[in-house]
């Protein structure tokens, strides 16, 4: 514990510890080519089932570097295999540390089909990771787009305002309007940079085929895009159905709520016209309490 020698020079330990470091906002995710290849290999091998894996790397300033990753085995829905999953993870991290791989979890990756990755499970996984790691990112890969010659890789993060609301479970209309949060603001997409070490870049430059046209071009210039279009439109229709059901539920709740509140107002009006004394006050409190419970119950129901 160093004490200040002069007031203008080094700050004391206490002073430094007191000032909180403000982390610079995450601006980019830097992935190694090795990680990209690994993710693609894992997702493609086991498609069409959806797979996940862990990302390892370093958190440096405003750039999150992802330097390695390992896949998770497909988990059965069984309670005792939970422990096995944790064991597998520990084992892999330990082994990778012995070969000097960065042992620091920075997020996870998962595969998806046709762009439908915005699920409740994703949000829950994000919240779980956010408890332990200050900055985590989720990388989403779509193996079906690879057949069209596109590298469909996305890095996602939950926006801070959404996270605060979710933690306090405070999804009321005013809060949403206050924070100006709509469905586009839940996830933030972060730009991806790809980096490679000099050694591998030398190897790749040498091993590159001299063909003027690569497999990538063959895939891109394919004319049969209708199956993908059809699947996407099918998903869109399903989502619209879900949305209309939710909207109807909401309308129903809203009508009930306004009816109950009108009744409550009318009752209160009637009571206040009679003389305010003895038991009526007590009855008023009981009735307001009942309506209050009903309100809260229905607020939870709408979201």
């Amino acid at each position, binding site marked *: 514990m160093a004490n200040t020698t002069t007031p203008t020079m080094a700050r004391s330990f206490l002073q430094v510890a007191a000032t909180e470091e403000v982390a610079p906002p995450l601006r980019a995710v830097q992935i190694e*080519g090795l990680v990209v290849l690994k993710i693609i290999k894992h997702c493609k091998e086991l498609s069409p089932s959806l797979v996940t894996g862990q990302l390892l790397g370093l958190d440096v300033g405003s750039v999150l570097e992802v330097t390695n990753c390992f896949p998770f085995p497909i988990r059965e829905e069984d309670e005792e295999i939970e422990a096995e999953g944790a064991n597998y993870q520990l084992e892999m991290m330990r*082994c990778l540390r012995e070969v000097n791989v960065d042992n620091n979890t920075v997020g996870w990756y998962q595969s998806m089909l046709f762009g439908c990755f915005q699920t409740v499970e994703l949000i829950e996984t994000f919240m779980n990771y956010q408890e332990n790691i200050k900055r985590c990112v989720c990388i989403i890969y779509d193996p079906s787009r690879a057949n069209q010659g596109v590298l469909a890789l996305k890095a996602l993060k939950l926006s801070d305002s959404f996270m605060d609301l979710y933690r306090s479970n405070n999804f009321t209309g005013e809060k949403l309007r206050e924070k100006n949060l709509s469905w586009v603001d839940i996830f933030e997409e972060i730009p991806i940079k790809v980096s490679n070490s000099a050694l591998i870049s030398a*190897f790749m430059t040498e091993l590159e085929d001299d063909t003027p046209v690569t497999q990538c071009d063959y895939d891109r210039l394919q004319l049969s895009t209708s199956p993908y279009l059809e699947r996407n439109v099918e998903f869109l229709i399903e989502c619209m159905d879900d949305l209309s059901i939710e909207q109807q539920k909401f309308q129903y709740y809203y009508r009930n709520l306004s009816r109950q509140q009108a009744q409550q107002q009318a009752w209160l009006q009637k009571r206040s016209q009679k003389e305010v004394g003895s038991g009526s006050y007590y009855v008023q409190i009981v009735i307001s309490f009942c309506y209050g419970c009903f309100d809260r119950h229905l607020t939870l129901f709408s979201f």
Partner: protein
Amino acid sequence: MAASEQKTVLQFPPSFSSTLSAKVHPLVIFNICDCYVRRPDQAERVIGTLLGSVLPDGTVDIRNSYAVPHNESSGQVALDIDYHHNLLLSHQKVNPKEVIVGWYSTGLGVTGGSALIHEFYSREVPNPIHLTVDTGFRNGEGTIKAYVSVNLSLGDRPLAAQFQEVPLDLRMVEAERIGFDVLKSTMVDKIPSDLEGMEISMQRLLALIDDVYKYVDDVVEGHTAPDNNIGRFISDTVASLPKLSPPAFDKLVNDNVQDHLLLLYLSSITRTQLSLAEKLNTAAQIL
């Protein structure tokens, strides 16, 4: 060589190894280079296991790899066998089809210690492949070679094991799919979007067509000697285009364009509907 009365012949086993070949996926090279860059300071080279499978026609398909910590000192090599088995089990949990097919080491050529390691691996797998990746670029280029061990025997006595090179297929279809530009440079600031990629592909296609045009013009004017094979190839390609009358072709293209326009319209309607619903539903002050 022992002197003896009878004539003994130095035998090579029947040439099964000449039909064996190996195919390496780009992920393996990336893994090896990454492990080499991260090796501990006192190690000169990196040794690790190769995972993959053997295809029905005998080719060994090398798909994955992992490094194994080892200690090398004056001719003695110690490999961390427990680590090797642990990682193998972990990898097989994810993909049970990947089995050990050999081992790799960085550095040019095969050293004495390699024979011992190769022996260890041949106890795990009947005919392991030894892959050497020259990260030192000693010949002025990065050589990647694959070897198989072949037993030399003098008469009945086993004499030595020789590392024979096998042909290696380094075609990188997956790397091509991602795009060599992304994997080749040390830093790419942005992954090319769909439109940019399409633009690049169209430019390449146009360049190819220009080349063919120029070639045909040259041949017709007599500047280049005609090659019948190329001529037949070109005529096959042109004949494979379906015979459509211009109105039929126009109709096809227009139908497609109309489908896409319809979808654009539908999606913008959906978006408008969503924002309207949001405004209407959250406008009430009660909530």
